């Protein structure tokens, strides 16, 4: 049984036509289901948990990456499969990485139900699907895989699970049981030409601590703690993917 969670912005009149087309396509493909419309002070978590108790097995976020973030924690912890119908042009990184086309074309992918068990990162008790960033400073102590200490003076640590690759680092693979540790560095080359390089280490866990509060971003949201226990939970999330996914 499908349960569709419409983000608040999706209910804007400019998407009326697109919403109608998507709902028609859902019916044609036999994947229609109950619809929840998010609004201010309406908690997606509570709606999803209640609906899973009533028998929903697949939760579909209708919106963008932020919508998916609202759905991931309650849906994954309730054991439901998760999908996305991307609406709107911006903030669609995760859908693109999962190979889900925008608008009503996404319904075809959902109906095909190609489900992958995806790893998720865990920072203390908070899950992340995409990536986390931690600014470096001298007071950070970083222990990796319980076997070595890593240090670098400045810059930002990127912890990548599901992420696009670029010229410097390969794509993050969310089915390999590892988090990719990335620390970029610009070095001066010949004739003052700058060259960007990166440390790239796949690892299973990290322990970071500091006397000061560590302020990090997790999938776009801010998170603060003095001690971070970061690990990967293999196959923790059942995600519907398309054939154009990056992994």
């Amino acid at each position, binding site marked *: 049984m499908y349960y569709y969670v419409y983000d608040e912005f999706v209910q804007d009149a400019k998407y009326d036509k697109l919403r109608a087309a998507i709902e028609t396509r859902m019916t044609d493909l036999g994947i229609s289901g109950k619809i929840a419309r998010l609004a201010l002070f309406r908690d997606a978590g509570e709606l999803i948990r209640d609906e899973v108790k009533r028998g929903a097995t697949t939760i579909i976020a209708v919106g963008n990456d932020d919508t998916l973030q609202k759905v991931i924690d309650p849906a994954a912890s309730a054991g439901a499969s998760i999908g996305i119908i991307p609406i709107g042009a911006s903030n669609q990184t995760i859908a693109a990485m999962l190979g889900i086309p925008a608008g009503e074309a996404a319904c075809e992918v959902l109906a095909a139900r190609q489900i992958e068990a995806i790893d998720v990162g865990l920072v203390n008790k908070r899950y992340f699907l995409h990536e986390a960033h931690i600014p470096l400073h001298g007071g950070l102590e970083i222990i990796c895989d319980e076997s070595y200490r890593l240090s*670098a003076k400045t810059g930002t640590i990127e912890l990548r699970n599901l992420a696009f*690759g670029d010229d410097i680092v390969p794509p993050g693979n969310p089915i390999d049981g590892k988090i990719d540790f990335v*620390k970029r560095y610009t070095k001066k080359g010949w004739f003052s030409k700058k060259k960007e390089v*990166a*440390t*790239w*280490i*796949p690892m299973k866990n990290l322990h970071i601590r500091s006397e000061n509060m560590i302020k990090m971003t997790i999938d776009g949201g801010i998170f603060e703690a003095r001690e971070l226990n970061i690990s990967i939970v293999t196959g923790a999330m059942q995600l519907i993917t398309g054939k154009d996914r990056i992994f």
Partner: protein
Amino acid sequence: MAKPNNMTIIAEDVRIEGEFVAESDLQVDGSVQGVLKTAGDLQVGSTANVKADVSAKNATISGTVDGNLLIDGRLELREGAKISGDIVCEILAVGTGAQMNGTIRMGAVPVSAAEVESDEE
């Protein structure tokens, strides 16, 4: 620019202390102190400073290694390489200007570092 492959990289601004084990090929341009192991090929760049016992399938070294090297196959020491430690490998190639201080044992490589130690006793 070529797309990166899945080679583990320790860039020159990073320092590692402890036991570092890589499952894939490994490139070291930074500092490593302790133990350095990879099941794949190892490249130690000219900016690297390794104070560790090293084991790898094959290795190409252009930087400084202070520790023993146990290489299953080919070890190539390039110009600028400075090795202070014993070397065990099957094939050794030494470039002009590479420095070595330690014993060298070549031919069939023992299965493990433990075997080397027991042979020496």
